[in-house]
């Protein structure tokens, strides 16, 4: 299987502090890689370096074999790399449907063709399918800001899939979501992964969620990779238990 994402020796320092200290890993097509580790171990910084939100101090990122280090987030997104954020990032004043159309529109034609094309960029149907897929049907016309936290979290995840991405980086998708909604979210993510061969990297603190969703787990501590392996291997790894999971 080919690697969708190849990260080689990524480093990021802020002044004297090294947040990410030479991290390398691959993610293969169709894989769900879990990324865990204590708070402040550099997971989100690593995400931001991969996605062009931060410029890494050193190292290289490849997507589908192409070097993308230094590209802007918008350029990466149009190459098929999408993300969700740790904190909610929906557009509260827009309706659920409009949020999804916004999330997909830049993938439709050119800037000029969008200006003279239909106002929904031809995405109403696709948006409604996504709304159905994430079981938000009854909320399609509601302002995103009026949804419950869990529903907004679902919408946030749904938005990441509107552009038909190859690779999605999810930053704590389960944070603050109640148990019922969590089961829904996990099941939906697994379904998208199966049906569309989308590849995921998931940062998460909810161990149950990570261990049951991910095919492989990478543990970070103090800016470095501590261990990588199948969920059961990680669970039994003494170093991981010491640094993160606890006894």
């Amino acid at each position: 299987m080919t690697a969708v994402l190849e990260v080689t020796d990524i480093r990021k320092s802020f002044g004297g502090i090294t947040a990410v200290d030479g991290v390398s890993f691959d993610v293969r097509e169709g894989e769900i890689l879990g990324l865990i580790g204590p708070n402040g171990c550099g997971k989100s910084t690593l995400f931001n370096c991969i996605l062009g939100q931060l410029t890494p101090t050193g190292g290289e990122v490849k997507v589908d074999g192409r070097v993308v280090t230094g590209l802007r987030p918008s350029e990466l997104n149009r190459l098929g790399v999408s993300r969700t954020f740790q904190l909610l990032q929906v557009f509260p004043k827009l309706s659920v449907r409009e949020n999804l159309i916004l999330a997909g529109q830049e993938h439709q034609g050119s800037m000029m063709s969008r200006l003279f094309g239909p106002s929904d960029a031809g995405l109403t149907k696709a948006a409604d399918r996504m709304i159905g897929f994430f079981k938000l049907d009854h909320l399609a016309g509601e302002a995103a800001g009026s949804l419950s936290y869990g529903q907004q979290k679902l919408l946030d995840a749904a938005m990441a899939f509107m552009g038909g991405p190859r690779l999605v980086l999810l930053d704590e998708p389960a944070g603050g979501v109640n148990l019922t909604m969590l089961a829904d979210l996990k099941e939906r993510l697994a379904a998208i992964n199966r049906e569309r061969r989308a590849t995921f990297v998931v940062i998460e603190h909810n161990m149950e969620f990570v261990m049951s969703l991910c095919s492989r787990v990478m543990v970070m501590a103090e800016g470095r990779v501590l261990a990588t392996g199948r969920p059961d291997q990680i669970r039994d790894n003494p170093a991981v238990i010491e640094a993160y999971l606890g006894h």
Partner: protein
Amino acid sequence: MNGPRKYLRIALGIIVIAGLIVVPMNFNRYGLFILSQWAVMTIAAMGLNLTLGYAGQVSLAQGAFVGIGAYAAAIMTTQGAPLIAALVVAVVLCFVVGWLLGYPALRVQHHYLAFVTLAFSTLTFLAFRNEDWLTRGIYGISNIPRPVIFGFPTNRPLPFYYLCLGSLGIVSVALWWLIRSPWGRAFLALRENPVRALSLGIDTRRYTLMAFAIGSALGGVAGTLYAPLTQYIDPVPFNLSLSLDLLMMVIVGGAGFFFGPFLGAMIAVLLPEWLRFTEGYYLMLYASAVIGLLIFSPTGILGILDRLLSERRTRAASALRAVAKSGLEAAP
């Protein structure tokens, strides 16, 4: 939007447009001048509303673009060129300069951006005043001709008012299209959450520059009408206070609301006339009214309306939810 309300809106729109066409027919010269000025200022304010209201980029330079348009029109039409040629030059020029002025916005925001645009505004004013060879400096340019449109001369106040009103109509339709298009949505995303917008593939840089360029170009359109309206221009009307006036029109009307500039310009242009009877107190009254409005509703006049409407909608929605919930609980 449901059916009856939509028709009500359309009917209201037709009545307002018909009123704007019919009522001024027996206005005197001065009344028509004021109304034409309202139409021209509305166009300029709509441009600023795009930059500031929709895309969230502060600009204190809209008045400078009106000036650039006005000077382009004055210089070209007094040399015998048709106004439409001046319009093209003004739009292209303001678009390009607006695009360039957008570059600082990629690095600085809010107050800092305001200062950058303020500096540009001052610079433009100095150019109008000091470059005598082109602008005739403080003596200004007089005898600016009014255009002949499709064989109709617009020398008299009423036809010229119709020219301004027609231009306002065309600009409104074009801007309405822009706001409803995916671009409008992207501008909004830029204002609400640029980081998230970037992660959704929205090229925030290009949209920021576009917001500046299009907004400035509309300032240029307003300027091209302003010159033949007054038929004499000098640098004074295009100093910083015009930019501030335009900013106030946008804020008072309601930034980010399509009809905000119409209302804002009406208040800024017509209110002084209505308050004329108070003589010296006009400015004090006007200022107090604006302060009061912004304390009560920072989102302007249309912000009040929007708040009332959304409160009603939320009440209706929660009532519906309550009914649905009791239904669910009653079910076995």
